[in-house]
C-alpha cells in the first residue's frame, strides 16, 4: 500500500518525501515546514484555476447557444461543491471512520487548524483537497451539456460530491480499504478521472442524447477557447500532480517533470495519428491529446521514471484516440468525451502505473520491475471505483428526477440552454433589445399582438 511503501522509500532514499496520507496513522510527530507550505500555497491556487480552465475547454466545444451554460456548470462547482466539501465532504473523506467512509468528526471544519498535517498546516491540506473535489464534479458536466437542466445539475454534483467522491477518496487516500491493497494512485487517476468518467457515462445514459445527436453536425463554436482551456489545465496540473507530493520535495520535482513530459509524448503521437488518418493535425485534437496525456500520467506521476512517463504518454494516446472515434458511431452521447478522455485515459494510466512503476523513482515496483501482481491490484481498484461511482450516480439521478426534471425540453434545447436556464447569451450586440424598466415586472409571456390588427407580421 502506498503509505507504508512510501514511508519505506522515504527512509531508503533519504528524502523528505511526504506521503499524501501518512497522517493519523503511523506518521511521526509532524511540524510545519515553510518551504513545503510555500509550494502548497501555490499548488492550491494552481489547482483552483483548473476549474475555470475546464470551463473554457468544455465551453469552446459546445455550440454558442450553450456556451454559458457549459461554462457555468464548471464555475458553479466552485460554489456548491466547495461549500458541501467544507460542511461535510472533507470529514467523510478524511475523517478516521472505517474502511468504507470517514465520519462526522470534522464536520463544519471542526478541529481543522494550522497544526501540521504532514509538513503543512492542516487547513491548507483541507483547502488543497477541496480543489480536487471541485474539478472532479465539474468534469462530469461534459457528458450532459446542451440538454441537462441547470438546477438538476447543481443538485446532482452537490450530492455526488458527498455520496460518491468522499467515500472513494476515503478508500484510496483516507485510510480506506483500497489503500490497504497497495493500489497506486498518485494524484487521482481512479479517484478523480475514472470516478468522474463513470458518473459521466451513467449521466449521459440517464439524461439521454441530445435531440440532434447523430443526425446533425454539432461543431465546437470556439476552438481557441478549447486551446486556452487546455493550456491553463496543463499549467494547473503542475499543482495537481506536483502538489500531490504535499511538499517541495524531490518527489514533487519528479511528479512535475513527469507532468511536463507525458503530455508532450501524447501530443506527438496524437498529431501523428491525426496526420495518418485525415492528413491534417486538428487543433481540437492537439488540445484533447494533451489532456489525455495529463490524465494518464496523473496516477503515475510519482511512481515512474521520466522516461517511463514519456513512454506512458505515448502509449496512452492510442486507446483514447480510438475510443473517441468509436464513440461517435454509437448512440452514447457523451458529448465532450469524458469517458474516452478521462475514463479510458484514467484506466490506461492506472494500469500503466502498475506496469511502469519503478522502485528507483518512488519506491514501488511494477510489472516490469518484478511485481507482477501490481497490475491486477490496479485493475481491481479502477473497477471498484467505476462500479461504485456508476451505480450510485444512477441512483442519485433517478432520485433527483423525482424532484425536478433532469432534461431540458425540446424547445429549450432548440433555443439553447443559455437563454432557457440562464436568461443570457454569450455574445450579444444588443441590437433590437428593448430595455425593461425596473418597475415593470418582466413578463415572460409575449407582448400581446393586437388581435384583429390589419398590420403585417
Amino acid at each position, binding site marked *: 500500500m502506498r503509505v507504508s511503501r512510501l514511508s519505506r522509500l522515504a527512509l531508503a532514499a533519504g528524502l523528505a518525501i511526504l506521503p499524501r496520507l501518512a497522517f493519523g496513522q503511523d506518521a511521526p510527530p509532524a511540524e510545519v515546514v515553510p518551504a513545503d507550505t510555500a509550494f502548497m500555497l501555490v499548488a492550491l491556487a494552481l489547482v483552483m484555476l483548473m476549474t475555470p480552465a475546464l470551463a473554457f475547454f468544455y465551453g469552446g466545444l459546445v455550440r454558442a447557444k450553450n456556451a454559458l451554460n457549459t461554462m457555468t456548470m464548471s464555475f458553479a462547482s466552485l460554489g456548491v461543491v466547495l461549500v458541501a466539501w467544507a460542511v461535510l465532504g472533507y470529514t467523510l473523506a478524511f475523517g478516521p471512520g472505517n474502511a468504507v467512509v470517514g465520519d462526522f468528526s470534522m464536520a463544519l471544519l471542526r478541529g481543522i487548524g494550522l497544526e501540521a498535517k504532514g509538513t503543512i498546516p492542516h487547513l491548507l491540506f483541507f483547502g488543497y483537497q477541496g480543489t480536487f473535489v471541485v474539478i472532479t464534479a465539474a468534469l462530469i458536466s461534459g457528458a450532459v451539456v446542451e440538454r441537462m437542466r441547470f438546477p438538476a445539475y447543481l443538485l446532482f454534483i452537490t450530492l455526488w460530491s458527498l455520496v460518491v467522491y468522499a467515500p472513494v477518496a476515503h478508500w484510496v487516500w483516507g485510510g480506506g480499504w483500497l489503500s490497504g491493497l497497495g493500489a497506486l494512485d498518485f494524484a487521482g487517476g481512479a479517484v478523480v478521472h475514472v470516478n468522474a468518467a463513470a458518473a459521466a457515462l451513467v449521466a449521459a445514459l440517464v439524461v439521454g442524447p441530445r435531440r440532434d445527436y447523430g443526425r446533425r453536425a454539432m461543431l465546437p463554436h470556439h476552438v481557441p477557447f478549447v486551446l486556452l482551456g487546455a493550456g491553463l489545465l496543463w499549467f494547473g496540473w503542475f499543482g495537481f500532480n506536483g502538489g500531490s507530493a504535499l511538499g517541495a520535495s524531490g518527489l514533487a520535482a519528479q511528479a512535475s517533470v513527469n507532468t511536463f513530459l507525458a503530455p508532450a509524448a501524447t501530443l506527438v503521437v496524437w498529431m501523428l495519428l491525426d496526420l495518418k488518418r485525415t492528413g491534417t493535425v486538428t487543433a481540437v485534437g492537439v488540445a484533447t491529446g494533451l489532456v489525455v496525456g495529463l490524465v494518464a500520467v496523473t496516477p503515475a506521476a510519482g511512481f515512474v521514471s521520466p522516461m517511463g512517463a514519456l513512454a506512458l504518454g505515448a502509449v496512452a494516446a492510442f486507446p483514447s484516440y480510438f475510443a473517441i472515434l468509436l464513440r461517435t458511431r454509437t448512440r452514447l452521447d457523451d458529448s465532450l468525451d469524458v469517458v474516452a478522455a478521462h475514463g479510458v485515459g484514467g484506466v490506461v494510466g492506472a494500469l500503466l502505473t502498475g506496469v511502469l512503476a519503478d522502485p528507483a523513482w518512488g519506491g514501488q515496483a511494477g510489472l516490469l520491475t518484478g511485481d507482477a501482481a501490481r497490475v491486477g491490484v490496479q485493475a481491481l481498484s479502477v473497477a471498484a471505483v467505476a462500479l461504485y461511482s456508476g451505480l450510485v450516480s444512477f441512483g442519485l439521478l433517478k432520485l433527483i428526477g423525482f424532484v425536478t426534471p433532469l432534461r431540458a425540453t425540446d424547445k429549450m434545447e432548440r433555443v439553447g440552454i443559455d437563454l432557457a436556464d440562464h436568461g443570457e447569451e454569450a455574445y450579444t*450586440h444588443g441590437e*433590437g433589445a*428593448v430595455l425593461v424598466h425596473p418597475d415593470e415586472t418582466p413578463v415572460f409571456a409575449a407582448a400581446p*399582438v393586437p388581435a384583429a*390588427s*390589419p*398590420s*403585417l*407580421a
Partner: protein
Amino acid sequence: MKLIKAIIRPEQLGDVLAHLYRADIQGLTITRCDGHGGEHDEVETYRGTTVKVGLQEKVMLDIGVSESFVEACIEAIVAGARTGEVGDGKIFVLPVERVVRIRTGETDTAAVTPVAA
C-alpha cells in the same frame, strides 16, 4: 405586396423598431451589414500597418408589407432613423410577386397578416 429594404444606423434600430411597432408593423427581418456612402473613412493603425476603413456598420431591414402599408412603413423608418448627419441610410422599395408563410402555406397578404394570438 412590396419588400421594403432599409439600411440604417445600428444605434437607431431601437427607435425604428419602436416606430414600426406603433404603426402595427411587426414582421420584419434584420441583417447586420456594412455600408459605404458619403461618410468619412476611418483610419486605423495596427503596428506599422495603416488602413482606411471605408465601411461603416449598418443594419438592413427587410420588411414585407401589403401596398397599403408602404407609406406608413417608410414614414416610420424615416422617423426612427433620421439623425440628419451623413450616413443615415437608404430605403429601397422592391416589387414582390408572391409571399408564402411557411408555417401554414398561406400566400400573399394572408401570409403577412399577424396571428391573432
